[in-house]
């Protein structure tokens, strides 16, 4: 049954499409556009901080820049992109022909997009965009201390964007529960789909708390005294961070899944330790819901020891995942294509972020490092050096499936090299300057021995990152203009999405889905065929 509107193809058809693949692509493209915007904010901040007592932007503008950089990257890039990947790939990987609740997913996408635009519309208001930080604590963010419609628009934008993401995540959750193809038991779901499952569980369990916190903040800003006194300030932080910690794992797991798929396919070997991996991502996600007040160690308002305990315990599932990486590589037949290289880089660089995270999970160490550039280094290593590289691994891996064309390998390797240098040049010195006493969220700093040099290195690195991203955009452009056809399965993939055309048809599978016996059904078939061939050759070579 086709509605009247879908026949009107073109723009209207595209924008009202309920095909999960189109929604996923639109969400991904919009997120990437926001990534570029957030990157512009970053480069502006780095330009300001390249010299002591920088004068490029005013103190007020700087506070808008760091607020909007963080908000854009978290609410409008890394998180929605994680949902976009899940929305596109999970139904394909589990053999579903569509997502559950496609209308809801579509409405969710538009709600998110509207939230993003409303958040950014603050730039056009008289007092400027949101400027109380991504964290936006009370009393700083209340009507007295940060008045004006720009901050209001920020709060409303967050509410809409988060609501849209909850709805989209809910659709993916129901799809996994109810739309798996027969034979696709949960313990035969691909690794990426498991990371997608825990991602949407965290979204459903924690994002509503953020929405409540923001609604209350909005009301607080307009007369009612909701968050009052010491306990009100702590309550706000509890509510915000209950979302604010799981969200960083939402911004990690799908990219971990993408990197894992890229590595398994690149190694021509199924992912090692599947059951341990499933248990560890479930444990990792559950723990991630219980660590949030490590962001509040220095407030004196929470029981630091409980949160130090849960935060340090993260070592266990994380360690299992790294063990599985090694187990997949060892004994494999490795093809060092771009997706594989980005994935390996993801694991190495993320490790720096993860280890520095265990460092600040210890309250006494955090009393020094909290709110310094050490912390900025920590979370940029996990989010940028980690997740964004995992994102590129996923892009190089699945671009052919999405578009039917291959991305250029040579350009991709140049991009990787430039980004490795740029990323480490930008973020590693931050560990050092933070240890030396440079706090975060300052628009200028006085002369301190070594700070100008380190900051200049960081600024140079940020420019290199921008160059790397530009190379990627150029790669996409060239690859779509002068197409190298990819075919259904350019990489000898393991999972069901490689058994359909590139790009997949509207209902995902035109031919019957191959038999599903494990989490790597296509690899199973290939091995079976190889065994059969070998047996036939042996029989032919031994005459009766």
């Amino acid at each position, binding site marked *: 049954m086709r509605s009247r509107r879908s026949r009107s193809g073109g723009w209207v058809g595209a924008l009202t499409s309920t095909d999960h693949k189109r929604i996923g692509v639109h969400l991904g493209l919009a997120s990437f556009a926001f990534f570029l915007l957030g990157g512009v904010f970053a480069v502006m901040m780095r330009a300001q901080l390249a010299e002591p007592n920088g004068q490029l932007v005013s*103190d007020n503008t700087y506070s808008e820049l760091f607020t909007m950089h963080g908000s854009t990257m978290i609410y409008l890039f890394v998180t929605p992109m994680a949902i976009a990947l899940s929305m596109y790939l999970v139904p394909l990987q589990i053999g579903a022909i569509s997502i559950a609740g496609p209308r809801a997913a579509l409405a969710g996408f538009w709600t998110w997009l509207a939230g993003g635009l409303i958040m950014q519309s603050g730039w056009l208001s008289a007092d400027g965009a949101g400027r109380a930080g991504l964290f936006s604590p009370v009393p700083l963010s209340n009507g007295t201390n940060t008045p004006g419609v720009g901050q209001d628009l920020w709060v409303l934008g967050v509410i809409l964007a988060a609501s849209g993401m909850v709805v989209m995540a809910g659709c993916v959750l129901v799809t996994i529960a109810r739309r798996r193809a027969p034979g696709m038991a949960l313990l035969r779901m691909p690794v990426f789909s498991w990371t997608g499952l825990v991602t949407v569980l965290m979204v459903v369990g924690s994002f509503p708390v953020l929405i409540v916190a923001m609604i209350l903040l909005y009301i607080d800003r307009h007369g009612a005294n909701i968050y009052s006194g010491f306990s009100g300030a702590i309550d706000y932080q509890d509510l915000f961070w209950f979302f604010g910690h799981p969200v960083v794992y939402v911004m990690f797991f799908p990219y971990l899944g993408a990197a894992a798929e890229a590595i398994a396919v690149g190694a021509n070997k*199924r992912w090692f330790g599947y059951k341990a991996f499933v248990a560890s991502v479930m444990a990792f996600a559950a723990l991630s819901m219980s660590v949030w007040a490590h962001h509040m160690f220095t407030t004196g308002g929470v029981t630091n020891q409980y949160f130090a305990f849960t935060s340090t315990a993260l*070592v266990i599932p994380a360690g299992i995942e790294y063990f599985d990486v090694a187990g997949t590589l060892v004994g*494999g037949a490795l093809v*060092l294509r771009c997706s594989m290289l980005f994935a390996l880089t993801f694991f*190495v660089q993320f*490790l720096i972020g993860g280890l520095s995270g*265990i460092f600040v999970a210890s*309250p006494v160490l955090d009393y020094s490092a909290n*709110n310094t550039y050490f912390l900025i280094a920590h979370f940029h290593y996990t989010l940028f050096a980690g997740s964004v590289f995992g994102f590129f691994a996923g892009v190089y891996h699945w671009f052919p499936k999405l578009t039917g064309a291959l991305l250029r390998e040579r350009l991709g390797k140049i991009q990787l090299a430039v980004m490795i240098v740029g990323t480490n040049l930008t973020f590693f010195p931050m560990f050092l300057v933070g240890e030396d006493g440079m706090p975060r969220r300052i628009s200028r700093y006085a002369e301190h021995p070594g700070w100008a040099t380190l900051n200049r290195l960081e600024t140079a690195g940020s420019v290199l990152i921008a160059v790397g991203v530009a190379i990627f955009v150029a790669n996409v452009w060239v690859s779509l203009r002068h197409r190298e056809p990819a075919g259904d399965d350019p990489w000898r993939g393991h999972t069901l999405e490689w058994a359909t055309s590139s790009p997949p048809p509207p209902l995902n599978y035109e031919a019957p889905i191959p038999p599903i016996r494990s989490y790597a059904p296509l690899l199973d078939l290939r091995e079976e065929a190889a065994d059969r061939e070998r047996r036939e050759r042996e029989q032919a070579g031994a005459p009766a």
Partner: protein
Amino acid sequence: MTLIALISTRHEYDALFSVYVPIALGVFVVIVIVILAAVLRYRGRPPEKAARWSEHNGLEAGYALLLTATVAFLLYLTFSAEHRVDTVSARERPSLTVDVTAAKWEWQFSYPRYGITVRSGTVGRQPLVVPVDQAIRFRLASADVIHSLWIPQLRFKRALIPGATETVTLTFTNAGTFTGQCAEFCGLRHADMVFTVRALSPAAFASWARAGGRTA
């Protein structure tokens, strides 16, 4: 009479740092070597050569136990240090009490015993003068938004949240001049909310205090 050593946040930090960082570096090096070695050893082989095994639950369980033991060890060190810094220090009898009031965008340090008040930040730069090797009780209050008292030399910071007065007990172990900075974004001139700390010998501090805080 045995002297009980005063808790030094700097010392606690350095001690934990000296365990955490080498472990982190070691883990990083091992994992990078394993990945690099695997990449070099197994690249370029034909796909049929790839091994078919894909799990070893016994090995993983053993590895998980090793990780659990590591976590237990780190937690033991962490809990002990945190206990000393937060709980034991609070039981020390302070030789000095300083009332700290943070407001946009200045610090006010008052010595109730001596009737001295110094201010620093956008209003100027009068140093916070303290004696070394003595327990100093800081009572932290904020007049408006959340600020954070950070003295990098002590490797310590604590938030000042309006509506309640927090108490911390700190000890300076080295004499000298150090910087202090607000470490919680508090609005337009957050970057200017800095102060200087001058740690003097107890004798020099006493004469400073007697002189009403005018010489140092």
